[in-house]
């Protein structure tokens, strides 16, 4: 009797284990994500003008943590073709941070920006910072970083050469290169700080009321439209305090804008 009982319980355990194994096997298969397939499907959907499908497929890859300017660019394209200007500008801007010198991206971003309804005040001041540190925006973050590294290496190389050959020309060159390398390294470090501390966002909703306070009852100060780029000055509860242009500051809901 005991043997029979033991045999039955062993059988049960075996069946349960088998079922569990099958279940996990199924789960593993079901949960398998092939980014290559999603990418190809996204491209196919885009070409077939199924832009919503393209967005879904590209978003799947992005949600897996892939950070690539080209992929962001594709997402921007899909959103723009799908008529969602806000998300299109958001993804183009994110792509721009990663590949600022891509000509296709520049072209599409410029085109998308031309569709944005909100125009900044023309008489807005050009900050002295932008004039003095013109290379910051001109070269882009990656180029500034590498220029800093190269100039730094060049400086130390000249110093090394100076150990063996002491000539006046090396001294002049080393000082010039040192000044330039410090400039670029500091700019690169500033860019890193800016990335962490100065956040920018893009308005996603077609029309967003910018209010004076953190509630829907607060006075509507002005209205912004999708695709408009703003600076996020503060986050509080479910709201962003945004800066659009001189004197145009207010609060918007977090879900109405996307952080670049």
């Amino acid at each position: 009797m005991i043997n029979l009982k033991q045999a039955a319980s062993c059988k049960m355990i075996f069946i349960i284990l088998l079922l569990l194994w099958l279940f996990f096997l199924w789960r593993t298969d079901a949960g398998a994500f092939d980014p290559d397939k999603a990418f190809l499907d996204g491209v196919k959907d885009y070409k077939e003008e199924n832009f919503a499908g393209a967005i879904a497929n590209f978003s799947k890859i992005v949600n897996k943590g892939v950070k690539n300017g080209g992929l962001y660019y594709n997402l921007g394209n899909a959103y723009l073709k799908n008529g969602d200007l806000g998300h299109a500008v958001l993804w183009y801007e994110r792509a721009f941070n990663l590949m600022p010198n891509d000509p296709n991206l520049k072209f599409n971003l410029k085109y998308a920006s031309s569709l944005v309804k909100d125009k900044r005040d023309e008489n807005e001041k050009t900050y002295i910072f932008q004039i003095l540190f013109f290379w910051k925006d001109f070269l882009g973050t990656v180029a500034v970083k590498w220029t800093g590294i190269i100039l730094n290496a060049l400086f130390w190389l000249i110093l090394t050469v100076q150990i063996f050959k002491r000539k006046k020309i090396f001294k002049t060159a080393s000082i010039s290169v040192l000044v330039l390398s410090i400039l670029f390294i500091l700019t690169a470090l500033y860019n890193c700080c800016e990335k962490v501390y100065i956040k920018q966002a893009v308005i996603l909703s077609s029309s967003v009321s910018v209010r004076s306070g953190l509630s829907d009852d607060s006075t509507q100060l002005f209205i912004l439209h999708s695709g408009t780029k703003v600076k996020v000055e503060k986050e509080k509860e479910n709201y962003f305090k945004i800066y659009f242009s001189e004197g145009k500051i207010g609060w918007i809901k977090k879900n109405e804008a996307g952080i670049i």
Partner: protein
Amino acid sequence: MKLFMSMLIYGLSARSLCYAKKIIFGILTICFRLFFSHALTSNENPRKSTYSFIAFLLIVLPIVLIFPPFTWAAEVRAFVDKNQTTSEQPVNLTVTISGEEGDVDISSIKDFNVISRGKSTNVQIINGRLFRQISRSYLLFPLGEGELTIPSLTVVSGGKTYQTKEIIIYVSKEAKHHESNDDIFVRANISEKNPYEGQQIIYHFKLYRSIRITNANLKRPEFDGFSATEVKDKKSYSTVISGRAYNVDEVSYLLVPLKPGELVIKPAVLSCDKILRGQNKRRSFFDPFGDDPFFFGDDPFFGQTKLKTKILRTCPVKVNVRPLPDYSNDVPFSGLIGKFNIYSKLEDEKIKTGDSATLSVTVEGTGNIMDASLPEINLPEGFKVYRDNPDEDIRIGEQGYFGKKTFRLAIVPVKEGTYKIEPLRFCYFDISTGKYKTVSTGPLSLAVGPSQEKSVFKVFKAETAEKELNFKKKKVEFTGHDILPLKEDPGIIKNQKDLSLRSYVIFLLIPVFFYLMVKGGTALTKKYDDPSSLMAQKADKALKRAQKMDIFSDGFLSLLYKALVSAVFSKAGTKGESLTYVEAEKILRFNGCSDETAKQAAELLKKIESARYSGTGSETDMRKRLFAETKKLVRSLS
């Protein structure tokens, strides 16, 4: 409480108010049926009917008392301040809507020029009844004389449409008025009262003022039957009329009649505020005489001044547009009306077969020059023609559009010979004569020589070809708008490498380490190259060799000498091979060694030298002692 409820009700939107009315009406109906239907249909006790009536009153009265009596339907009224006026005097039309907000359609007013003066709202409580009235005011300027009509106006209020009553206004001729007596007046005139269809004329609106005004607002006429373009250059000048000086501000419009017949340009209306000086004008510190308009004395905010609104209207201007006469000519009509000329030019008169010559045809003049097209060109056979986009230099001025339009053609002969290009004929309507006029260019000739390609191989130069063709480069414009395509490289689904701050710092430090390593290496190498070190090594090496060697061998004493001399040179920091004991003592003293050590070294060197050359050092003990002393001294010196 009642007032509160009234305010509450009136604070509601129109739709909510409509629902509220329906609900109250429903309640009243139900109450009436509940209390009276039974009493009316049966012959019950009359006392019961009385009770029902009292109960009805008890329920209905509070409702009636609490809720204010509504204006159940909006009331709409239109009225004027006068129904007899002159052609120069405007009429004030007011449309009142009682109860709710409403929109008035004034598009049906055709006999008057209408200017909206805004709206006002009036809320009153009279005998516990709350009245709300919205008034919309309009200023109507008669566009004719006699019996003019303000038609029934449509008013939409609370989702319903209402009609006002028709109003008749009797407009009489304006009595002669001397403008010269006015401080401010307006005039309108046109450059040509009898233009031809398509002829451009200029409409001038002039404001004459001898006083200062502010808030000027011009409502230009509609210019029905014309295409109108504002001439951007506004003029301001001074003039004298009947001995009185006026400042004149002039605005001009370029008009082109679109159809023949009698057209009327409706009056232009200008509203402005006259700045009047007060009686008790305070003299400004900066303006003791009070005449300088730039100081506070005349300033409406700082000075003792008043503003008086003035509305001025020009007379309607009649234009008799003449149709163009019938056209019958073998040269096709170009469609241009005005005054034009045409000329042509051939850049090169002698060219070779296959080369190109630029033929430019220019139409120049005043009128609708922008509509000019290239007249028909009859080129001899054997020419290839390439057309370029025409160049336009067209401006708008006092006489309307003027300028020139140049057409360029690159003509390429394929056969040699002498060719004549026939004059180009061009027909336009001359407004000065009122007739169609044909103008033509002069004849041109072109000599085509044989191609050089037959004898000489010519290297093609892009720049030269471009110069010869004389095509003006133009900026490339977008003809459509779209975005550039997707990136299809599968590599974009991989993470883009980005330098983290830590990696960046490491990259910056790598050359620093490299430099330090080189620096350290050279420092070490330098140490070994030092003569002092080299001589010390030499001394050490000589001692070691002497130790290994048999003490009676020939080189033993030489090695001891070498070790000691090297040690002395090492102390001096120089290189050398031999020394006398006197020199050795001096060197050691000079380099900071004690007198005792210097003497010891000199003595030892003396002993070794005498042992080497005199043969006194042949004893074993002596040699051993010499080795031990040398070793000790070398160690102490190094």
